[in-house]
């Protein structure tokens, strides 16, 4: 196992980079980050639309979220694979395809997290803002969202972990990322699949477990800051 790692660590880390496209762990992280960043505005829009008092905003947003939740990510990847070249008008690479699919898919899930964060705020916050004379947008941008997003930090980190795990599906459309790199190593070695995929699993585990633990830490910090949890007392 160590020998495989010694001979192939560079391929796992950056793919064939100096001689080919960048891939491996670096690409996995990059795709996860960029997808989450790009889907963020859509997710906020969807969440606000679902909480909107207007039915013509609420219904389509609800329909979108339920439709996305009802389909496997693989379906989005294939749709993105076939449709995005038609819309953009040129060939689209595996990485771009995967990012497009992930943005659509994650936006729906993230919007549910954001909606829960907004609904979790005490109603007094919006009422106080309204009584101070703030209209909808100032209330949302300056009072509701900053608090909701702060409370949601742990869920966002978990969502980042999910996204990292989901980038492994790039393998299906040959996007150069970590799982694809491992499959390449396996195709060269042929005889040690358990070791190669074991290394792959351990790599993902180390990365995702660290992030999950970070999410738990942040969660404890935030609830301690609110003085909410028993056992942790905060001096006034």
């Amino acid at each position, binding site marked *: 196992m160590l020998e495989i790692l010694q001979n192939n660590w560079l391929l796992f880390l950056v793919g064939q980079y100096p001689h080919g496209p960048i891939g491996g762990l670096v690409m996995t992280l990059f795709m996860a980050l960029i997808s989450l960043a790009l889907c963020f505005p859509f997710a906020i829009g969807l969440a606000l639309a679902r909480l909107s008092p207007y039915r013509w905003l609420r219904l389509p947003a609800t329909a979108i979220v339920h439709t996305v939740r009802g*389909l496997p990510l693989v379906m989005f990847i294939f749709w993105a694979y076939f449709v995005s070249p038609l819309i953009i008008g040129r060939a689209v690479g595996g990485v771009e395809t995967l990012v497009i699919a992930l943005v659509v898919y994650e936006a729906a899930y993230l919007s549910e997290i954001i909606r829960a964060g907004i609904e979790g705020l005490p109603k007094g916050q919006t009422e106080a803002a309204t009584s101070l004379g703030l209209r909808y947008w100032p209330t949302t941008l300056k009072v509701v969202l900053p608090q909701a997003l702060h409370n949601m930090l742990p869920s966002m980190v978990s969502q980042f972990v999910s996204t990292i795990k989901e980038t492994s*599906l790039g393998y299906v459309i040959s996007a150069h990322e970590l799982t694809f790199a491992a499959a390449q190593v396996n195709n060269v070695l042929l005889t040690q*699949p358990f070791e190669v995929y074991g290394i792959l699993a351990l790599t993902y585990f180390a990365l995702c477990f660290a992030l999950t633990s970070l999410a738990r830490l942040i969660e404890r910090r935030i609830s301690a800051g609110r003085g909410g949890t028993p056992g942790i007392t905060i001096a006034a």
Partner: protein
Amino acid sequence: MGYVFDLGSVLSGKYLDWFLIGIATTLALTAVAWCLAMAMGIVLTLVRMIPFPPLGWFVALYVEYHRNVPLLVQIFLWYFGVPSLLPRPARQWINAHHGEFLLAGIALGLAAAAYVAEDIRSGIRSIPKAQYEAARSIGFGYLGAMGYVVLPQALRISVPPLINQTLLLFKNTSLAMAIGVGELTYRTREVDSYTFKTFEAFAVATVVYLVISFGIMALGSWSGTRLKLETR
């Protein structure tokens, strides 16, 4: 563009058969993995209750592994990795008996079991300890108190999250196409590559996935209202 959207061309003759076989395989895979997930999830929950720390650590490690490693990688490890560790006759048996279906079922089921165990545990945790203490004080033993008082209430609370896990499990069966299991996504690609009717083929698959998913979601929200306990 001269593209004519023609559903009939993919929904007739052998292509329709392929879709139907794909749907049947997807449902069968969901069922196999579901049974394994429930059984394993209950076993993990029971093991965690035994007051012997190393067992608790084992369950925690099991849960963390399955939650922090991508499902596709788990499937690869089962499909490519595990048979290479088995003796030769076992490997031949796997190759001869659609091993990919079985191994995908094991991978999907064991991964879902981690989530099932967590859902059942949070169900048990939500039952006030007084319920258990009251049962013990009127003469139930440990098993009696758990079996007649705590678990019936806890499982009731766990049902809606478990139905949500079923939805995720159903969606995740699509990953089995990566190792050549002939489920819906795999068959869809096959129809696509034979007919070149890409949009029709994927539209059919999309609608089938949505219909079944909405069915599971409806069951989930119905059970959420139906099974709600009136608590004091």
